[in-house]
């Protein structure tokens, strides 16, 4: 039966005499493998050599601070809603007087926990965040755990360290695209990785 005019018969089961004799095909195969034997190896010596994971890789979470070191998160809960694994939980609190240098908005997350074993690193929280607070780092993974008690990461591990800020070349899709076009056209870019504007 033929339904379209695009079909193409591809399997030929008739063997020629040479193919019947086993040895030519085996010799061809041996030729291929010995060629690879002497070719360059592609192995990445992982713990010593690390591969660049691409600008948009979805690694471990980070809660960003702004340029003044204030936490950006306003505990709106969109990330928790967007999380298909239900790995994010948070407790919101009102900002007290005198805490303006700590939190950017009036509300902040007193508790912000990510269950790193539940998380599936889909990036929906990053997309959902309206305050540019939660990001998935492109340069680090979550380390392995040896104990079930270590897996829930609180703010102590998630919030960015001001001395060692997480930087990226581009923070939004639009920025990334613009940068990419510039690079493609051979224009000078001079982009240094930087913190979130």
């Amino acid at each position: 039966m033929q339904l379209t005019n695009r079909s193409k018969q591809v399997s030929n089961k008739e063997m020629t005499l040479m193919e019947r004799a086993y040895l030519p095909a085996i010799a061809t195969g041996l030729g291929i493998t010995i060629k690879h034997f002497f070719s360059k190896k592609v192995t990445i010596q992982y713990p010593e050599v690390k591969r660049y994971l691409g600008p948009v890789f979805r690694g471990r979470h980070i809660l960003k601070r702004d340029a003044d070191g204030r936490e950006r998160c306003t505990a709106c809960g969109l990330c928790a809603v967007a999380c298909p694994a239900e790995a994010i939980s948070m407790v919101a609190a009102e900002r007290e007087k005198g805490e303006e240098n700590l939190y950017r908005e009036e509300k902040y997350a007193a508790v912000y926990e990510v269950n790193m074993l539940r998380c599936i690193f889909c990036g929906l929280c990053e997309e959902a965040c309206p305050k540019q607070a939660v990001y998935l780092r492109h340069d680090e993974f979550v380390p392995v755990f040896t104990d079930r008690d270590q897996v829930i990461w609180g703010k102590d591990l998630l919030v960015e360290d001001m001395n060692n800020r997480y930087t990226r070349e581009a923070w939004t899709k639009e920025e990334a695209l613009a940068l990419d076009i510039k690079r493609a056209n051979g224009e000078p870019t001079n982009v240094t990785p930087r913190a979130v504007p």
Partner: protein
Amino acid sequence: MADIELLPHQVPANAELPELVEELTTLNLGPTHPATHGIFQNILKMDGEKIVSGEQTIGYIHRAFEKIAERRPYYQITTLTDRMNYCSSPINNLGWHMTMEKFLEVQVPKRAQYIRVIMMELARISDHIICNSILGVDTGAFTGFLYVMQKREEIYEIYEEVCGARLTTNMGRLGGMERDLSHTAVQKIKDFIKTFPPVLRELEKLLNRNRIFMDRTIKVGAISTERALSYGFTGPNLRATGLDYDVRVMNPYSSYEDFEFDIPVGQHGDTYDRYMVRNEEMWQSLKIVEQAINNLPEGPYYADAPEYYLPPKDEVYNSMEALIYHFKIVMGEIDAPAGEIYHAVEGGNGELGFYMISDGGRAPYRLHFRRPSFIYYQAYPEMCKGSSLSDAILTMSSLNVIAGELDA
């Protein structure tokens, strides 16, 4: 041989023979047998090395996709489809998005459609790479597997460039793609088109015309077109029987009508045919990718549908309207009408269908996945009946049963 079943031998009624008993061995293939790449169990009744009958037990990784889908907003269902046929997750993701776009009547711009085609065809290549090279592994030729796996790694790099993950890509968004193809991605795809053919040719040289491989696969696990149709075969396994049914051609979606490609078909539906059909499909997919990347239209990569597609981040911070849309979309409060839809795409293993019933809520009322592996795997006992254990294993791996898709 702990448990042996004694069955009365079927002696002709008129023959005067002493009563014979036939010893059948029960062999438990799986669930942790190395050849059951996913997890399913085959209880085979064996007479020596011949298989007399078989019965499968599946459901070892049943994860209740359909139940979970009833509780998840539409945009989160991609995380489920990702894990369905994990060898070609972009096809599943984009298939689901296309279903929703058809349901919500969103027009996707041409550029996004082309990007989708590229991604889906790369996914098909990676799916077929695994199936064909694993067939080689099951016959004992391990090396070809690692050669083509290097190219699969490159496909994963392309995914990573496009969406940020390797396997469970969460690719595409309702209304388009999540980001445009970057220059690096285009470059990587072009490189891939150049560097893949020699490697695939190497695999072909190692296996295709090697008599050992041909002897192992020809006439093994054959099924006729009629039986295949009755068993609900689709995709490469159906095409191997000689019927050129392909959703991409019959019901083109995402601009597949723009591309020139052939539908490879086999002769007898045996393992060799399946292998060859998949092999040729990789070439055809490569052809499609090449056409798509060379004719990639300019324009936006997402539809102008603010109520479904997340607004750019900058706008969210500055414009109230965008912020409202942002909240509505993330909370899953999009205005979906009540209704039902069936949409099918050509998945790695055949017709991948999404049957969705909506009652206007934030999540599907009922979402059923037509999973090709689940449907055609029931033919397995019939296909391996009377063959030896080795044949049964090759038949299984050439069917490319993906456990995630099988059990859902």
